[in-house]
């Protein structure tokens, strides 16, 4: 076991992690630990854009953006956070431009902007051009630009280091004569893929920026590596997870594959049609139609299919129609995604509509933080030195449904905030003593996976998990489907104790790490399902057919899921609630 010492350790080198590193690296001794090479992170897959009310092409302002974000999230958004994000969006985009990001330009040479779902002029009057973009590879350009700037600032990366545990100690603190126990961060434990050795990193500040958990589902736009590690590590160490029942299904995944076709396609004028050739979104969202928020479009599509108007021989998808757009326009604005349709489905988008169906896309929930990106260990207690930003976190700016282009924004705004706060804290705080035998738990975890000889296969358990999540915890949910899903997850967990990992070596043992990742997936599937069961209403991305209405009286609250073995009814997940922060906007009915 090797021990390293840094002021700040950042877990993850996607957009959030590298944006944090650029700030923190210039102020404090910083290490970035990442299980992937930085440029392999899934931020690079983002296509459509990053929004900010620059008003470069038409009138716009940050207040309209805040409103859209709050309404898009079906009023479960913490409004102070949404306001911070919408205000700082402008600087966030300009920061990236100054770092070199090649945004598409207007004829005047300014940053160009385009439409995206749920972003409107003056509180819902009409779609507005708010999304800044670089063709349909905006995420790629953000990831490259941030990496380039990390190179420029000599940020220290530990590539292919898997963080597997968070080290915290309980300390007694006395405030106003009252003594209480407080968690403090001491560092993290990581596994070096190349050598199979464990490395302990002692740090004053730890920033989690480890991304999402899309691989709990079978049909997903997410990378194989998005297995909820950061959320899982925090949860196992007693940090609650907020709003995990809210998972976004993006309307336009390539049918059967889940590969994403950005909403930018619809932003540029593409529309959805059913098997009868009908533009069905006119019925579901008469004002903004195909540019309604994702939860609404995804449900409308699933409903068309359920009611027998799906296209194709099995009537199991709908069609994304770009055929009325000029090929030159498509090539200029949507080159990558039309190439996906050609490569993977053999469909020519110039002349044929593309088969699409909702794909699991984005975790609205995650590790709870406040607007300084500080992690909370309950509704209001900050864990000194612990930060989270990006998809792993829940501040909450997305509430129950994220608007397109708000995540690339989130990772930049709150990534920067996390980096600044982590460095600032580290400059005054002391190191916390590393607990004795810091790697015991991690070694046990790895040894269990390595030495068990029960013969169960990791890939098979994972597949069965993904199947049940797709079938029972997707766009439509009921008590029955959720209870059944929990039951299946429990049996999969039991089988997981009897897995066999074939690769017994130390070097690049990805077989072993897939087993560890499956452990996180199982935990997160359980949390997501238990939280979905707990929320007996429909709001944003969470639709309960047995409770189809939004119920503000009982459920205008965040959910907080704690690991608790005593909660046997819900597979060891205890659910509590946390108030939503309101500033300007009172809940209204959500119509588009």
């Amino acid at each position, binding site marked *: 076991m090797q021990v390293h010492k840094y002021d700040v350790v950042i877990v993850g080198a996607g957009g959030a992690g590298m944006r944090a590193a650029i700030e923190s690296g210039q102020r404090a001794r910083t290490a970035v630990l990442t299980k992937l090479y930085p440029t*392999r992170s899934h931020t690079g897959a983002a296509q459509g854009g990053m929004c900010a009310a620059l008003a470069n092409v038409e009138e716009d302002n940050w207040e309209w953006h805040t409103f859209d974000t709050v309404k898009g999230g079906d009023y479960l958004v913490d409004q102070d956070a949404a306001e911070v994000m919408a205000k700082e969006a402008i600087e966030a985009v300009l920061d990236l*431009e100054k770092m070199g990001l090649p945004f598409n330009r207007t004829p005047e040479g300014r940053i160009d902007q385009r439409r995206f779902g749920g972003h409107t002029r003056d509180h819902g009057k009409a779609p507005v051009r708010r999304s800044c973009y670089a063709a349909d590879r905006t995420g790629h350009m953000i990831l490259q630009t941030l990496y380039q700037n990390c190179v420029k600032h000599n940020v220290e990366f530990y590539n292919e280091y898997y963080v597997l545990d968070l080290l915290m100690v309980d300390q007694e603190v006395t405030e106003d004569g009252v003594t209480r126990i407080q968690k403090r961060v001491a560092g993290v434990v990581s596994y070096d893929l190349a050598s199979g050795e464990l490395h302990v990193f002692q740090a004053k500040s730890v920033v989690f920026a480890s991304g999402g958990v899309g691989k709990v589902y079978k049909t997903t736009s997410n990378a194989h590596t998005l297995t909820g590690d950061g959320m899982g590590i925090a949860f196992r160490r007693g940090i609650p997870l907020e709003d995990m029942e809210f998972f976004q299904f993006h309307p336009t995944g390539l049918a059967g594959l889940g590969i994403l076709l950005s909403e930018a396609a619809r932003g540029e004028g593409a529309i959805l049609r059913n098997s009868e050739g009908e533009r069905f979104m006119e019925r579901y969202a008469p004002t903004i139609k195909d540019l309604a928020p994702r939860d609404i479009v995804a449900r409308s599509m699933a409903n068309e299919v359920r009611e027998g108007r799906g296209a194709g021989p099995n009537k199991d998808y709908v069609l994304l129609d770009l055929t009325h757009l000029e090929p030159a326009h498509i090539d200029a604005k949507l080159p990558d995604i039309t190439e996906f349709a050609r490569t993977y489905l053999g469909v020519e988008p110039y002349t044929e509509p593309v088969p699409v169906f909702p794909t699991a896309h984005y975790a609205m929930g995650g590790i709870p933080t406040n607007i300084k990106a500080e992690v909370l260990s309950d509704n209001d207690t900050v864990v000194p030195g612990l930060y989270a930003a990006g998809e792993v976190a829940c501040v909450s700016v997305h509430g129950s449904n994220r608007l397109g282009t708000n995540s690339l924004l989130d990772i930049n705004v709150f990534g920067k905030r996390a980096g600044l706060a982590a460095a600032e804290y580290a400059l005054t705080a002391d190191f916390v003593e590393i607990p004795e035998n810091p790697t015991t738990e991690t070694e046990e975890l790895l040894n269990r996976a390595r030495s068990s000889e029960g013969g169960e296969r990791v890939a098979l358990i994972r597949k069965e998990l993904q199947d049940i999540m797709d079938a029972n915890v997707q766009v439509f949910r009921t008590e029955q489907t959720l209870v059944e899903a929990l039951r299946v997850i429990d049996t999969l967990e039991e089988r997981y104790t009897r897995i066999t990992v074939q690769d017994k070596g130390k070097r690049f043992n990805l077989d072993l790490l897939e087993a560890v990742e499956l452990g996180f997936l199982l935990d997160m599937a359980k949390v997501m399902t238990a939280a979905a069961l707990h929320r007996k209403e429909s709001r944003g991305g969470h639709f309960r057919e047995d409770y189809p209405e939004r119920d503000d009286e009982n459920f205008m609250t965040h959910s907080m899921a704690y690991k608790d073995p005593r909660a046997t009814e819900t597979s060891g997940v205890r659910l509590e609630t946390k108030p939503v922060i309101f500033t300007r906007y009172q809940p209204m009915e959500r119509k588009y």
Partner: protein
Amino acid sequence: MEKEPASKVELAPGVGGGGEIPTFDITLKVRRYNPEVSDEAHWDEWQLTMYGTDRVLDALHKVKWEHDGSVSFRRSCAHGVCGSDAMRINGRNRLACKTLLKDLDTSKPILVEPIKGLPVEKDLIVDMEPFFQSYREIMPFLVSKGHEPTKERLQSAEERDRYDDTTKCILCAACTSSCPVFWTDGQYFGPAAIVNAHRFIFDSRDDAGDMRLEILNDKEGVWRCRTTFNCSEACPRGIQVTKAISEVKQAILTRKV
């Protein structure tokens, strides 16, 4: 002005396709190497039944998940944007997640090897450090002198187009590791580093073009390129790599971009 599409259209029969996906059998041969076990590399092969929509990555996953968990390779996004899974497939550098099995000759075994010119660590995993080292040496970041504007710097659409092609690079190393010069001379910067230099040299906002041209004028720089076009053929992003290298050569000669 864009025109509003029709509320209802007549769809062509059979539009979208789908339904039963055809299956076929393949033989997958993978070049194996694990210094923990042996200093010698060898080939392993498997008979697999695959679907018409499957890619080489799906075949590798089938092997790893159902037959031999020790087969090792990198992968992440699985749709050609993260650059993790560049490998030699039937002698050509490609991304495993972008190569459909049905587009290969499945009557013969499909051969999968690690990319060449970088030290092999285990099976299809190579040491990427030398590759990233060259990348870092060409100053792959915008350098601009003078005052920062309060808002964005202006750049015309034409100026933006000038370097558009080279912004697509995903650093997968397919180009560099297909270059015969790189195979024999590990010191050569290689196409990917030059592509990334091009991305900044031709960016109207950048002020360090001269310095980068100087770096690439080095004996291990652009002049080692023998214009074999392997790199352009290998690029999974369709970047015209050889053209970019020629433009850099031209810029060194004329000191004009």
